[in-house]
C-alpha cells in the first residue's frame, strides 16, 4: 500500500485537522500527526487489518532549530509496507503522549529520546535516563547544548600537546 492510501485511511479515521502528507522530491514521504491524536492514530494503524503496522522500527527525536520533532518509523511484517509518522513539538516544552501502550519497543526508544533531547513522553512507565549517567545535566543532542566543565572531578577538556585549540 503506498503512502497516499495510508494517509487517506488515516484521514478517514481521525479527520483531517492537523494531518498533513509530505512527499518531498528527495527522500521519504511522511505523515504529520497532531500531538493530541498520536495515540489514536497509532492504535488505528496497528489494529486495522489492511494496515497492520505491528512493528515499531524506530522512534527518533530531532532538534531543528525552531522546533522539535518526534519521528516514528512503522513497518508491517505481514504486509511489508512502512510509513513515517511525525509529530511537531514546541522546542521550549516538548511533550507528547507515549506510544508504549501500543508497541512495547517504544519503551527504550522514548527513554533515549528523552535522555538525549529532553522530549517528555507522557504516560511512559519508566522515563529515566538511559545513556547518560543519572546525574548528568542537560540534554546532549540539543543544538544549544553546552558541555559542563567537570564531571565528578574529571576535567572535560585536555590541553592540546601540539598547541592547537583545546579539545
Amino acid at each position, binding site marked *: 500500500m503506498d503512502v497516499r492510501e495510508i494517509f487517506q485511511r488515516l484521514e478517514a479515521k481521525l479527520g483531517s485537522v492537523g494531518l498533513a502528507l509530505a512527499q518531498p522530491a528527495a527522500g521519504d514521504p511522511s505523515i504529520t500527526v497532531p500531538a493530541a491524536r498520536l495515540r489514536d492514530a497509532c492504535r488505528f494503524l496497528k489494529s486495522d487489518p489492511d494496515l497492520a503496522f505491528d512493528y515499531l522500527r524506530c522512534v527518533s527525536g*530531532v532538534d531543528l532549530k525552531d522546533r522539535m520533532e518526534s519521528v516514528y518509523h512503522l513497518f508491517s511484517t505481514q504486509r511489508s509496507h512502512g510509513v513515517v509518522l511525525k509529530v511537531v513539538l514546541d522546542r521550549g516544552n516538548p511533550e507528547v503522549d507515549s506510544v508504549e501502550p501500543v508497541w512495547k*519497543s517504544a519503551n527504550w526508544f522514548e527513554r533515549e529520546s528523552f535522555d*538525549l533531547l529532553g522530549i517528555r513522553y507522557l504516560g511512559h512507565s519508566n522515563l529515566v535516563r538511559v545513556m547518560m549517567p543519572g546525574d548528568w545535566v542537560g540534554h546532549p543532542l540539543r543544538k544549544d547544548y553546552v558541555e559542563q566543565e567537570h564531571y*565528578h572531578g574529571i576535567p572535560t577538556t585536555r590541553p592540546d600537546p601540539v598547541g592547537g585549540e583545546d579539545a
Partner: protein
Amino acid sequence: MLEPKAQPADGVLRINMGPQHPATHGVISFMVETDGEIMRKATPDVGFLHRGVEKMAEITSYPGFMPYTDRVDYLASMFANHGYAMAVERLLALEVPRKAQYLRVIADELNRIASHLVATGTMAMDLGAFTPFTHWIRERESINDFMELICGARLTYNYLRVGGVCADWPVGLTEKILLWLDHFEPIIDEFNRLITGNEIFINRLANVAVIPGAMAVDWALSGPNLRASGVPFDLRRCQPYSVYPELQFDLAVGTGSRGTVGDCYDRFWVRIVEMRESCRMLRQLLAGIPEGDFKAKVGRTIKVPAGEVYSAVESARGEIGYYLVADGTDRPVRVKIRTGSFTAVALVEPISRGLMLADLVAVIGSLDIVAPEIDR
C-alpha cells in the same frame, strides 16, 4: 565515588553484574534482584560506552562520518558502513556501479560470518566451553586477513565510500577466499560435533527464555533473534537492497528442534545456519564479480539536498537503520542509528523473571547483544 548501598531487609539479594564482566559482551551492567538462584528480574543499565556518535555526525561532514559508523558495531562494521552509504546515496539519487555493489555485499557476507563466529563462540565460552571459541578465533583471523587485503584494516574498516568502495578488488583474492571457504565449511561441521549436539549445552539452552513470535515483533526484535522466534522476516528478502535480489539463499528460521521455538538454542542454531548460507552466497558472488568502476564519481565535499531518509540493512545482529535528516549543507542535521541490540537488550528484563542466575548468561549470549550497538 561509588558508594556501596545497604541491602534492603526483604530477603532479596541485589547484586550487579558488570559493567566489567567477561560474560556481558562489552560494558553493560545488569542490576539483578535474586532470591537464591531464581531471579526476580535483571534490569540492564547501559550507557557505559555511549560515545556520542550521533552528535559527531553533526560535527563531521558526510564522508567524514564513515569511520564513526564502523565503531557502531565493531564486530561487523561493514553493515553499519553500508547502511550509512545507502542513506546518503538515496538522498543524492546516486547510482552505485554494479561492481561496487558486488564488492560491498562480499564484504558484508564475510563480516556476517566473522560476527557469527564471535557470537556463537562467546556464547559457548560463557556457558563454560572454552575450546570452540579458540577454533572460531582462528577462523576469524583468516577473515581479518582478507579484510586487510581488501581495505587495509583488520577491525574497523572504513571500506565503503559514498558512491562505492574505496579500493578495487585485489588480484588473486577470489581464489584465496574460495580456498578458505572449502576449508571453512567442514570446520562448521567440526564445531557442531564439538558443541552443538552436546547434551549439557542443549540442556543449558533448550526451553530457556522462550520468546514467542508475537512478543518478538512487539518488542521490535530483528535479525537472527526475530527469525529464531519463528518470524521469517529478513530485510535481504523482504526489503531487498543492493544485489541481494539476484542471490539464492534460504532463510534460517527457528523450528524448536531441541526445545521450543524461540528458545536460546534456536537463536544459537539460526546463527550456525546463517554462516552456511553466507558461504553459499559468497560462492555465488565470487563467481560473478562484474567489470567496471568501484566508485561513482562524487566530489570531495558532498552537499546533500534537504530531505529525510530511513535506510536499513540486515546486519548480523539485526537491523541497522539510519534515519538521516539533511538540509542542503555539507553536514547532516541529524543521524539516528537504530540497531538490533538496542531492542534486544530491552527484552532482557521481562524475559529474565523466574529464570536462574546461570540462565541470564545464556540469554545475554543468545540475544547477541553488544555494547557499542546499544550505546553508540
